């Protein structure tokens, strides 16, 4: 371990912050999905950091499961984007309100 834990955690927080800003500000659904991937990665970095700090495998296992769930999430999200695009050429996340009560 070359750098102290705090540096890794701060870096993870910065990456998470960038991802949150991306999700909130951008309107392109593809870029929003990519920002969600950034969030997953920031969380994974924190998990792996603490797994290394307390030499414990559980953090690795959990990060692995997060990667798997992220793959499933990306597949479903992209399918939804594709279907939305098929229904109308304009894919604006604010206008997709069919399910709104």
């Amino acid at each position, binding site marked *: 371990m070359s*750098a102290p834990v705090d540096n890794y955690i701060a870096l993870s927080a910065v990456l998470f912050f960038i991802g949150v800003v991306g999700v909130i500000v951008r309107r392109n659904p593809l870029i929003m999905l990519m920002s969600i991937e950034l969030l997953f990665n920031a969380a994974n970095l924190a998990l792996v950091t603490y797994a290394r700090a307390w030499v414990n495998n559980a953090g*690795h296992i959990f990060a*692995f499961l997060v990667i798997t*769930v992220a793959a499933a999430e990306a597949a479903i999200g992209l399918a939804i*984007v*594709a*279907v939305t695009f098929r*229904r109308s050429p304009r894919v604006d996340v604010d206008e997709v309100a069919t399910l709104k009560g």
Partner: protein
Amino acid sequence: MIGFWILSVVLIASAVFCITAKKPVYSVVGLLANFIALAAMYLTLQAEFLAVMQIVVYSGAILILFVFVIALLSSGVRPFDVGPDKAPRIAIPAILFGVVALGIIVVTAIRSNPVVVKPTGQDTGDAFAFGSVANFGSALFTTNLLPFEVTAFILMVAIVGVVLIAGDEGPGGVVRRKKKRAIEREPILRRAQDDRGRKVTR
């Protein structure tokens, strides 16, 4: 130590590029750099297996999925239109709120009790060293077998869901399939009208 700083600069720069790029393809390139730098960061944390999985699954599978969707959506008769690009009135409050939350996280992380990093106590060349494939696999298939099986179920549900959602007929495709067989295959624009429930003129 110097590697950590180089990698963190690459990570932050590529993440910022990813969320600020105009076109989704550029975002994918930024995300690719981010994933690879993160895999290198995992190596500095002795998570060798996870570093490989990061490259294989993220850069290999998920990003290719993104590229495919971008290519397919942009190559049709219609351009990929996302409307007005940003929401400028949201940007300033979002960034302000985010900076405050970030400050809280960083200050808490620094002021809390320092975590003493334990040595792994093994040579990195050892086959069962911390973070190696053997170490990871034995933990995954013994202690954490149930989460592993649940993951398989999640993946299967995701596959079925994607096929149902994005199948040829769209949502509710099974019901609509008979109708569609009756009419001959029509161009995509008119099929989109059919999806919205309007009458299709033939």
